């Protein structure tokens, strides 16, 4: 087994997801499949090949930077338009006790 239900529960908790026992079992099975597939990829010999996180890895990086020039911003009403709760120009969220 590549991944246990306990590990799935831990990852779910980090992601603030509440899974039912049923979902837990299904997620474990699906993640298992993904990890088994990764094992298959690992059969390839990648010695000397740098890890690639983006397909554009070889692009000229500096060409993708932006200049330090101001662009138009949202006004306050637009910024808060989708907020479930707002007041005094702020987003309002249930009281945060600790970080």
């Amino acid at each position, binding site marked *: 087994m590549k991944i246990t239900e306990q590990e799935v529960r*831990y990852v779910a*908790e*980090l992601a*603030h997801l509440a899974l039912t026992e049923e979902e837990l079992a299904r997620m474990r099975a699906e993640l298992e499949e993904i990890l088994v597939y990764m094992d298959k990829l690992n059969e390839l010999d990648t010695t000397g090949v740098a890890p690639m*996180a*983006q397909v*554009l*890895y070889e*692009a*000229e*990086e*500096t060409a*993708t*930077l*932006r*200049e*330090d*020039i*101001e*662009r*138009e*911003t*949202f*006004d*306050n009403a637009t*910024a*808060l338009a989708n907020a479930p*709760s707002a*007041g*005094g*120009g*702020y*987003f*309002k*969220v*249930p*009281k*945060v006790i*600790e*970080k």
Partner: protein
Amino acid sequence: MSSTAATLAPPEVLARYEAVIGLEVHVQLATRTKIFCGCPTSFGAPPNTNVCPVCLGLPGALPVLNRRAVEMAVKAALALNCTVRPVSRLARKNYFYPDLPKGYQISQYDEPLAEGGWVEIFVNGTRKRIGVTRVHIEDDAGKSLHEGFEDSDRYTYVDLNRCGTPLIEIVSEPDLRSSEEAYAYLTELKLLMQYIEVSTCDMEKGHLRCDANVSVRPRGAETFGTKTEVKNLNSFRFLKAALDYEIARQVAILENGGAIVQETRLYNPDTGETMGMRTKEYAHDYRYFPEPDLLPLRISEEWRERIRAEMPELPSQKRARFVEQYGLREYDAQVLTLSRDLSDYFERAAAVSGDPRGTANWVMGDLLGALKAEGKEIPESPVSAEQLGELVALISRGEISGKLAKEIFAKMWATGDSARTIMEREGLRQISDAALIEKIIEEVLAANPKQVESYRSGKSGVLGFLVGQVMKATRGQANPALVNELLRKKLG
């Protein structure tokens, strides 16, 4: 040491231990716009107005890295003597908090912008190099307001204006051995960042924030003790007080046979104590992974060297030059380089006076004293560098006495006039006319026969009194060296 720290462990107990401290310092870069979008970084805008889809973390919005932020970060890394990676990588640091709308911070993890540098500090007359482990770039979070609203007992208010402001994090090696060294290190970092103009380092605005890793060990021990992380050290005063407290707290635990618990502690400036934060054990599992929305950051050698070429003279280089070129003492060079304004002022004044050491004394003494008394900064000084230089020149050429110069300086300060203007207006000029001084000496001797007698009977200390009487009679304008010489001659 703070009084709270002293109650935990007496100095003789503390003396048997050594602190091991490393600092993590966040510096806000002085760009016009945010790190991944074109929203302004201006401070004090109405809440949630310096925002856009990117910094609000709206679905589908994509970050584009600010070239200026990269340049400033590279400049900072070079000033810290770090090696800049040709290719570094942005990474997501995942955690949930209301002031982090994306659900992750874009930071750097295993391939930071730069590594392996150092900063030189000067504590108790000794120079010491503090290692810099790494420098990386990241975005700032927004601000949570937990108090101040009528329903603050139920709600936290969130302002996302600060969200996406460019930061660099500078991580030091655990090379600091006392709160004094930590203070000196942070002071030097701040000075460096201000010199190279990558940050204003305004602590009140949160441009410079500091966390510390602290452990203690018996003096002479090789291995490190268990460390705690102390957060919220956001002023120089807090830094020292919090570290002293934390060091004493740990020593007290060890002295009582206890063990240090590895944890994050928050400094409370109101009580002067550090308090353990109740955090869940997996809170530090940030599941870093490469940021898929941004390409690896490539810094070509050519770009890096262009940035290096723009580097102004750094404080440490300037200090060395002041000692070499002007013959100043180390300490004086240290004080005079505490800001670029101050060192520029000194150099301009010294150029006019032709007497660098005399100028240094006047800048560090009378000028800084007068500025401090009125809560002013160098650019607001009513006496310009050139004017002070002229005053110092008058002293070193013997045209006026030091005492008279102080009087003139006070008038320059009050009026903004030059020394010469004031001397002419008030008839203040050093009297170096021997005949005139001799005449005054005769009067003084005639008026003080007792003192003259005791001087002649061997009490040479009386000479000072007589010199003083002559100076008084001339309103301080007589050339003191000449007065001395002539008095001795007259008294035989």
